[in-house]
């Protein structure tokens, strides 16, 4: 863009319209400059102005004529038609076209600054040792490596080096207000990067931060927000009085209603309202909605905090050193309390106040309650509840991210190799405990939790139902994706690879074979990954290969558990697996339906039918809650049962046909 000095006539026009500059020679203009669109503007330092004319094309806003009105602009480069009105001070910014700023006290860059990039936050452990640097490309998986792989100091150093490189690339004396951004009614912003199409309205104070944004998924910062040292990613909404210090707000996350958070990272699709968060690793879909809830020094994902959820992490000894690890899909009941350190197995429900440091990681889908002061674990109980089924189906539907470049890598499977391996292990543990426990014994102890001896056998049986469902489901999924045309084709389709056959990890939303993660870690250590983008690409490749890895795990686990070598399985074995899948899917679904039925039972009708008799109660209930038969969840599940039976029949016929076709 070519710039020129203002003409005398233009200076005269500007001055006659209330504009002022001590040295007009420092104001350069380009294009069809229209002095008529500039009123009461004080220019200072070096200012570049591109064409300030035409109409602004800002999505969601009425068309507005470009212009600068009642502003103070210092050391800025304005690169296209913009609309500024009542802007107390704009300093140190490059402003792209179609930006609209109204009623703002000050937007100032006092560089050099990295706009929040590189600020270290103390995740998981307030006492330090697991610091994660904030940066604009921080994903849940990279944060997972940084926070939880401290046993790999060389990798951590290398990774932090890559992040430092990224942060250095962001260091600047000037900030950017990206194309189409809208900023209004803001008190003060200092050293803040405003991404394209970001919307900031009513914020009180923003300091040292980045609001990443894009046309497809603008980030929104709303009224009353106070944020210091932050990264807010595309599609995120931060509003209604949230107070953030040293925080990441991930893509599609919702933060507001006076939530206060420090040293915390909320990854994709998290929701934080009313509550307090400190040193919180909120993996994707972590949700805390209640005023009296505190999430502190914990790793969570797909988590739902009941009101009054609380944890403590220091016990008045050596300080706030302890951490909690709550695996994906957990919920806490109202006023539940966990004493860190503590680890909760995936998809579990924690109720009551626990004074024991338990580790139930081996037992997914559990209920953890308190009886007579002891933490009581009921394994597998949450396998067949309405909540688990509904949650697992709603998460993918509620992925709000519209940015084509999704940072967090998220697998939604309820039954994955990671979870299923846990169920195999838990079955073995339950069997061993059963064999070792005399009938007179009421409880058996396992890693700080007590299990009712009476439940050992039953819980093992419930895990086995899920396991049999999983194996058959994976077989059918594999057959569906490969569509074999004959026996040779079938053998080929079912042949598993080796990668993925071992242990798996849940990297804050992404399932991955540990062996593959180790390769990535080694690559980082040896400097073979040269940038944060290269690391992202490696992790994305792992993510994309999930189905192949998962099939390898499934095939090897199936052979270990049942002796069936899937690629060489007989027709009867495959038919048996499909039949097993059908039987156990129906069984599990029917148990969930029984749970749903309770929602329509007498207990659920308590409080219905104001000022009336039984008939009023029935009518009131039916008007508000509907009935079991017509409930959408119930109907969907019944339809799923029908589809399962049909699919099993179809695959039985197809397998017969495949075995008859060489």
């Amino acid at each position, binding site marked *: 863009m070519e710039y020129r000095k203002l003409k005398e006539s233009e200076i005269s026009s500007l001055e006659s319209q209330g504009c002022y500059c001590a040295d007009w020679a420092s104001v350069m203009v380009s294009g069809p400059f229209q002095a008529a669109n500039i009123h009461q503007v004080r220019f200072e330092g070096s200012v570049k102005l591109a064409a300030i004319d035409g109409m602004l094309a800002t999505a969601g806003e009425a068309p507005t004529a470009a212009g600068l009105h009642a502003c103070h602009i210092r050391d800025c480069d304005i690169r296209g038609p913009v609309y500024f009105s009542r802007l107390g001070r704009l300093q140190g910014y490059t402003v792209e076209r179609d930006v609209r700023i109204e009623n703002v006290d000050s937007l100032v860059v006092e560089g050099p600054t990295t706009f929040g990039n590189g600020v270290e936050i103390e995740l998981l452990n307030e006492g330090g040792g697991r610091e994660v640097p904030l940066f604009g490309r921080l994903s849940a998986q990279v944060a997972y490596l940084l926070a939880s792989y401290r046993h790999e100091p060389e990798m951590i150093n290398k990774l932090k080096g890559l992040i430092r490189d990224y942060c250095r690339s962001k260091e600047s004396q000037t900030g950017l207000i990206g194309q189409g951004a809208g900023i209004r009614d803001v008190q003060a912003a200092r050293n803040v990067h405003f991404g394209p199409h970001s919307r900031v309205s009513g914020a009180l104070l923003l300091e040292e931060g980045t609001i990443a944004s894009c046309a497809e998924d603008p980030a929104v910062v709303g009224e009353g927000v106070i944020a210091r040292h932050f990264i807010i990613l595309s599609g995120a909404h931060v509003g209604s009085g949230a107070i953030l210090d040293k925080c990441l707000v991930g893509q599609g996350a919702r933060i507001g209603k006076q939530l206060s958070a420090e040293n915390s990272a909320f990854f994709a699709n998290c929701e934080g309202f009313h509550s307090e968060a400190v040193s919180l690793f909120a993996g994707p879909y972590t949700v805390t909605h209640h005023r009296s809830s505190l999430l502190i020094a914990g790793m969570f994902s797909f988590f739902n905090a009941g009101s009054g959820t609380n944890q403590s992490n220091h016990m008045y000894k050596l300080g706030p050193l302890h951490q909690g690890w709550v695996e994906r899909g957990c919920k806490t009941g109202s006023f539940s309390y966990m004493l860190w350190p503590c680890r909760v197995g995936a998809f579990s429900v924690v109720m009551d106040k626990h004074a024991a440091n338990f580790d139930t990681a081996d037992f997914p889908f559990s*209920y953890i*309650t308190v009886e007579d002061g002891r933490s009581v674990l*009921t394994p597998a*109980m949450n396998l067949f*509840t309405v909540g688990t089924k509904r949650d697992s189906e709603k998460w993918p539907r509620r992925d709000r991210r519209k940015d084509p470049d999704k940072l967090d890598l998220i697998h939604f499977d309820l039954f994955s190799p990671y979870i299923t391996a846990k169920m195999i292990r838990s079955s073995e543990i339950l069997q061993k405990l059963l064999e070792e426990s005399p*009938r007179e014994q009421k409880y058996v102890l396992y890693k700080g939790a007590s299990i*009712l001896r*009476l*439940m050992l*056998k*039953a819980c093992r*049986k*419930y895990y086995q*139902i899920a396991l049999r469902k999983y194996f058959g489901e994976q077989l059918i999924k594999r057959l569906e994706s490969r569509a074999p045309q004959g026996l040779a084709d079938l053998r080929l389709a079912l042949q598993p690879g080796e990668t993925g056959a071992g242990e798996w990890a849940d990297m804050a939303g992404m399932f991955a074979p540990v062996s593959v993660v180790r390769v990535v870690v080694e690559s980082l250590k040896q400097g073979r990954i040269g940038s944060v983008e290269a690391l992202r690409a490696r992790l994305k490749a792992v993510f994309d290969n999930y189905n192949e890895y998962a099939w390898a795990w499934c095939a090897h686990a199936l052979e270990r558990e049942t002796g069936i070598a899937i690629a060489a399985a007989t027709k009867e074995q495959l038919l048996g697996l499909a039949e097993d899948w059908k039987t156990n899917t*129906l*069984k599990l679904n*029917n*148990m969930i339906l*029984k*749970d749903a039925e*309770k929602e329509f*039972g*007498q*207990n659920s009708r308590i409080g219905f039918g104001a000022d009336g008799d039984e008939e009023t109660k029935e009518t009131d209930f039916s008007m508000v809650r509907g009935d079991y038969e017509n409930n959408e969840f119930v109907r969907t599940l019944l339809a799923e049962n029908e589809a399962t039976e049909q699919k099993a029949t179809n695959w039985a016929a197809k397998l017969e046909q495949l075995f008859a076709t060489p």
Partner: protein
Amino acid sequence: MERNEIKDRVLKVIAEVLDTEASLIGEDDNFVFDLGADSMQSLQLVAGFEEEFGIEMDEDKALEVQTVGSAVDFIAQYV
């Protein structure tokens, strides 16, 4: 096994799991509404019956049983 014997043993299990007196439990009592069994206790009852009678019941069918009398009849099919 006679129905009465099954019933006595069923009542014993219920009394243990729900921490109540066997004499206070009636055949028509609903496990949830009358005896106050929660979800976990419902599973404990199934596990208790299985252990008491040395049987393995169909999980989803067992959860359909709602009253003490129907539990007795359901278990009678297995013993």
